[in-house]
Every structure is written in structure tokens, then in C-alpha cells.
């Protein structure tokens, strides 16, 4: 059991959930008399060049980032997996068309998609931005799922289900997905990270969440400025939280993917 990862993740998640209790400053406030303070008693992680308290921002920012990451990744999974499964089991022609379609979507710059979509759901809320990120990010997953499905689709346990006249959704949910999970776990988990980073990029481009919404991603983009100003804490903390959280999620996910009893290597 990855107890260590679970403990850390739990701490971070609890910290974000109970952000109002933990935060000792207003995360959106600018403490103009305390610019660029290094970590200390009052500002535990220091302040940035505009006097924002990084410690409080961290917990509030985590809420948004983790939410966007999980929500975005769920949407990616919810679209990418069924799409990949359909394409994987479909005949040559349908598969060809589905894959070309995915490639088509994948080769359009996501910025353009985001522009169009944000006009459609343009309320700038966390949920709508997650949806946008999800909708524009599933193509890669779909292709990988398809590849894996092709390998197991003629397995005899699936043939049996087919012989019993199982519907496609049944086969997908009971046979394909469970046997795919370990193969695509890494892709799934890393889509959490790409969603978080996408959110920060979008915010930075002015296409994402309003500037007043704090997220780890937007904090990371502050790092850009801070580096030249020698305020290492502004650079390090958001990165540390982001990477740690993702590593913990990865570790835990790997544990639960039920790696089927792997036989010994022949090498």
C-alpha cells in the first residue's frame, strides 16, 4: 500500500478542502507593505512581488487545480475511452473514419477550440473550463485505448460475451475497460497533470479562469517573473505542490490498477 503517498495526498486535499481554516491571510489580497517576503512566521511560504500570501493562495489554488485536473481528466476519460473502444472494435472502415476524425480534431490548435467553446460556455467557471479542457484533450487517449482494444478484442472471454449477444456497452464496461486500465493508467493520470497545466496556460492567455481565481497553474506562471527577482519561494512552492500531488496520485493509481498477476520475465 502506498501509505506514504496516501497520507501526503490526504494532507494536501484536506488542506484544500479546509482552506479557509488553514489560510491565515486573504489569498486574493495584496499586502503592499510586505512585498517579496521570504517564508517566515507571518507569511509561511513568503509573499510574491505584489505582496500576496503564497501560503493561503496555495490551499485555495489547490482547490481549483485539483478540481480542474480531476474533472478534466474524467471528461477526457469519459469521451476517450468509449471512443477508443468503439474504434477498436469497429470494422476497418468505421475505424478508419473514427481515427481520422480524432486526428483531425487533434491537429486543430486547442486554442482555437477553446476560443470557440468558451464562446459557447463562456461563464468562466471552473466547471466550464474543465469541460473545455476535457473536450479538447481526449484524442490521444482515444488512440491509445483503440490500440489496446485491438489487442484484446478477439480474446475468448469477449467472444463468449458476444456469443451470448452482449451489447457493446456491456462488453465495454465489463470486459474492455477493466482489462485496459493498467495499460492506460499512466496516460489517464498524466492527463490530470496536463489538464492542470492547460488551465494555467489558458488563464495566462486570458482564455481561462478570471485572474482573480487562484490556481496552482496561475501561481506557477508567476514563477516566470519571480525567477529573475531571486524570490525562490515563489518559484518553488507551487511547483513542489503540483508535482508532489501528481506523484502521489500516480503512486496510488498504480497501486489500484490491479496489475494482473504478471508472469515472470523470460529475459
Amino acid at each position, binding site marked *: 500500500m502506498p501509505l506514504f503517498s496516501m497520507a501526503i495526498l490526504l494532507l494536501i486535499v484536506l488542506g484544500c478542502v479546509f482552506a479557509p481554516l488553514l489560510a491565515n491571510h486573504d489569498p486574493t489580497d495584496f499586502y503592499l507593505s510586505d512585498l517579496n517576503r521570504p517564508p517566515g512566521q507571518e507569511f509561511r511560504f513568503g509573499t510574491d512581488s*505584489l505582496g500576496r500570501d503564497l501560503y493561503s493562495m496555495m490551499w485555495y489554488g489547490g482547490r481549483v487545480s485539483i478540481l480542474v485536473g480531476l474533472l478534466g481528466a474524467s471528461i477526457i476519460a469519459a469521451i476517450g475511452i468509449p471512443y477508443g473502444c468503439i474504434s477498436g472494435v469497429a470494422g476497418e472502415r468505421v475505424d478508419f473514419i473514427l481515427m481520422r476524425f480524432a486526428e483531425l480534431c487533434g491537429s486543430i490548435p486547442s486554442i482555437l477550440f477553446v476560443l470557440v467553446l468558451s464562446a459557447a460556455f463562456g461563464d468562466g467557471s471552473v466547471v466550464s473550463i474543465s469541460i473545455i479542457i476535457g473536450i479538447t484533450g481526449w484524442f490521444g487517449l482515444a488512440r491509445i485505448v483503440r490500440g489496446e482494444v485491438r489487442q484484446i478484442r478477439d480474446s475468448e472471454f469477449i467472444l463468449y460475451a458476444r456469443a451470448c449477444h452482449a451489447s457493446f456497452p456491456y462488453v465495454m464496461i465489463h470486459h474492455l475497460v477493466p482489462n485496459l486500465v493498467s495499460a492506460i493508467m499512466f496516460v489517464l493520470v498524466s492527463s490530470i497533470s496536463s489538464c492542470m497545466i492547460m488551465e494555467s496556460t489558458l488563464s495566462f492567455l486570458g482564455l481561462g479562469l478570471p485572474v482573480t481565481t487562484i490556481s496552482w497553474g496561475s501561481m506557477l506562471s508567476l514563477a516566470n517573473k519571480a525567477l529573475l527577482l531571486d524570490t525562490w519561494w515563489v518559484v518553488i512552492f507551487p511547483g513542489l505542490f503540483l508535482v508532489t500531488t501528481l506523484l502521489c496520485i500516480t503512486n496510488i493509481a498504480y497501486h489500484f490498477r490491479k496489475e494482473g498477476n504478471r508472469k515472470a520475465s523470460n529475459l
Partner: protein
Amino acid sequence: GCGSKEAANDQGKADMSNTLVYAGESESTINPLLNNHEELPDIIFSGLMKYDANGKPIPDLAESYDYDEAANTYTFHLRHDVKWHDGKDFTADDVVYTYKELTEDKTLASSITSNYEDITSVTAPDPYTVVIALKQYDAAMLDYFTMGILPKHLLEGKDVNTDAFNQHPIGTGRYKFVSWDTAGGMITLERNADYYDKVPNIERIVYKTVSNETTKAAMLQSGEADLAWLNSKYAAKFRDNKSYKTWDFKTADYRGAAMDMNSDFWKKNADSIGVLNLALDKKAIIDGVLEGQGIVAYSPIQRNPLGTNPEADIYSYDLDRFAQEMEKLGWKKGSDGIYERNGQKFHFRIQTRDYEEERVDIANLMSSMLKKAGVDMEVVLVTKFDWKAGYDGFLAGYATQFDPDMIYSQFVTNASGNTMHYSNPEVDQALREGRHTKDVDARKKIYGEFEKIYSQHPGILLTAYLDGNYVGIAGIDGLDTTRVLGHHSVGVMWNIENWTIKR
């Protein structure tokens, strides 16, 4: 682009000792008509007039000029010794062509055309004389004649907006365009040895197109650039370093939240813009964002010699007064701490361009301060302003470094630069008067009056004037900080012919 190959070979041999590498903004065209606040058009092209150290127009391509008050005509006597960089002679036809283009081409993608509205005709009685007739006297007209002149022989009959000339400019200025290497992100200029006036000391300028402020600072630090305009925070880093020099220019460049008077919100609530000033601790913003490199702004022509009327400074940071005034205006705080009036929250959205860090920071700080006072100013980052997307305003930056009439186009009802749809008959009146008055003292009074009137009903929540911090390697000399610079601290190269560089 083409030509870059040979140029590259040439440069490969040339030594870099007398070359200035300038880290500038990214560019798309070099044409004084199309981009009027950037450095390069200024040194490649020259106008009938140019500015001196104090921002006063003096003759340049013209040897002298006469003004006929009765007929409202300017007669320019052109220099005879001017040649285009391609060797052709410069004549009055070029001037006529340029001003015709400016006044008659309705498709010109330029924001300055309304400055020339008063011109009724431009004629060339002989190759070295140009006569420009105006509808009426225009005090700023001499300023506007500083606009660079384009070569007729290269552009006539072509679409100025899109011609390849814009990327291969030929001018009459101090520096010649050599090559634009888009793949390398640099524009190379060489001094114009045939320049009719003082030939610059620095032999070559390499203008690197950089889209990001951090990169500019990094380039300076790693020695890839010699000179750059940095924001105050980055500039501060170089101040104690012996190998760098910092020049702090005053600029007429202000930042403030300009409201769109056509928006539903301000149509109803325009009376409550001025009072917001009371809730802004502008000094704190300057110290916080600008490292103290700036001054508190109260008037749009505050850094102009004809402006700066202290009587217009009627709002100082005072939250108590703010509360009182708001009450007078009929605003009541709602349960969420935000003022309400007639069932409407005091909430408005301003769009802010994301490419300049200081703008974003200032907007954020303003928003935070207003929020504390009970006003919800939502900041939305955009890539480019979208006037049709229904925002209630935008974070404005504008400079009136030369004639105060430069604000005419911004504040006069329906003028070309009046993107906030500001309309105040008294202001219109004052600015018109200022434009058509000749006497300097009288003008100063008029503009002082304007400042007072305007401050009662402002359209812009002014915050600060920024200083222009130029940082360069220690070997650069000759930058002159007397000049008040413009928007984005443009104009630093006004005396580039006097600069020297030692490595």
C-alpha cells in the same frame, strides 16, 4: 525574408564592436503610417518636422516653413540634399503622396488619421515646396507634421496596408533598413552615411524582436542584448550592478481603467466614476507594482507642459469620504459588502491586455482595493481588445508627451480614438478651443480648465504615470533623459545620432 542571406554573410565578417543590439517588441510592419508608436519608423523615416529635446517641433525635412494665418496654409521649403535610402532624390511629391494617403485613403489601417482631419489640400508648387492648407488653425498640426514621409516612387498605386514595403522600408532617416531576418527574430539597420544631418556614431543597430518581458531581461543579463526597456521590477535588479546602466525617463504614459460609456452599466452610473478615485491608494500601487518608478495620476495630460493643473487633483485616497460620497450618490452596501443602487450591484468588467505584466498587476490591485471599498471591478484578461464583447471598460494606457491636443481624439465625442465613447460637451468645447488657439499661455489656461472640468466627470479611473526604465550595458552613452517619453516609453532613440557604444 529575402536579402537576409547576403546580409548575414556581410555581417559575419563585420565586427560587432560598433553595433547596438536592442531588445524590442515584436514587429509586423515598419511604416510610420501604420505603427505610430514604435521606435523603428522614427529612425528610418523622417518627417517634415521633428521634436527637439523638450518635445517641441522643429523643421527636419523642411528647411523652414511659413504659416499664412489668413489662408490657414503651411508652406514647407524642403531640403535639397535629401536622398531616399535607395538613392532616389526626395521631393515634394513624396510629401504630397504621403499626406494624400493619410487623408484620402479610407482603408488605411491607421489610428492617427483623425489628427489630419483639418487638412483640406496638399500641393507641391515646385519639387521642393509643399503647401498644406487647413480648414482652420490647428495648434497641434506642427506636431503632426513630424509624421514620417513615405517614398512615392515605391508605393504609388499599391496598397500601403499590405505592400511588401512594410517589411522592407526605404526612408530618409538616420538609419537604413538592411534586413529583416524573421527566422532569427532580428531587424538590422545601418547608419545612413548620406544623412543630411548628423550621421550617427553607432554603425549598426540590431533590433531583436522579443515578445516577452522576462526574455528581454534575461537577454540583457546573458549579454545577448545591449539595451532594453524593462519594467520597473526587472530594472531594479540591474541598478546596483556596475556593468549596467539604468536611465529613468519620465513618460507621459498613464495607466487607468477607461470606462465604456456606451455600456449599459455606465449609461446609468457614469456619475459614480470619479468617486472611485477616493477608494484607490494610488501611491501604494506605484510602490507595489512600479518600485516607486512613477507618479500618482489625476489628469490625462499631467506630464504635459500645458497640463498639470493642481486644481484638478480633487480626489485623494480617503475611504471615509468615499463612503460619504457613495451615500450621496444613492449607493447602499448590500449584504455581500458590495454597493447597490436601484437594484443593481456596483459591478463592472474591464478587459485587460495580458501582454504587459504591469498592466495586469495594476488592474488586479485596483480591483482588490475597490473590492475592499465595496465596488466589484472584475478584471478579464484578453489578448486584444474586443470592443464588441460587452465589457464595461478596459485597462487603458495612453500618453500625451507632445502637444496636449493628442488627447483630442480620445475625449471628443465620436473622435477617432474615443474608444470609451466619452462625451461631454464642455470637454468637447475645451479641446476644440485648445486645438484652434495659437497663443501658448491661452492654451495652457484652456487645458487647465479642461483638466478641471474633466476631473468632475472623468471617463478614466487614472492610476499612475509610469517611468520608463531603460537598462543597458555600461558602455552605452548618450541617452538623454530630458525628453518625456510616450506610450510604452517610446521615443528613447530621439537622439540616437549622439549615442556611442563601447564594449
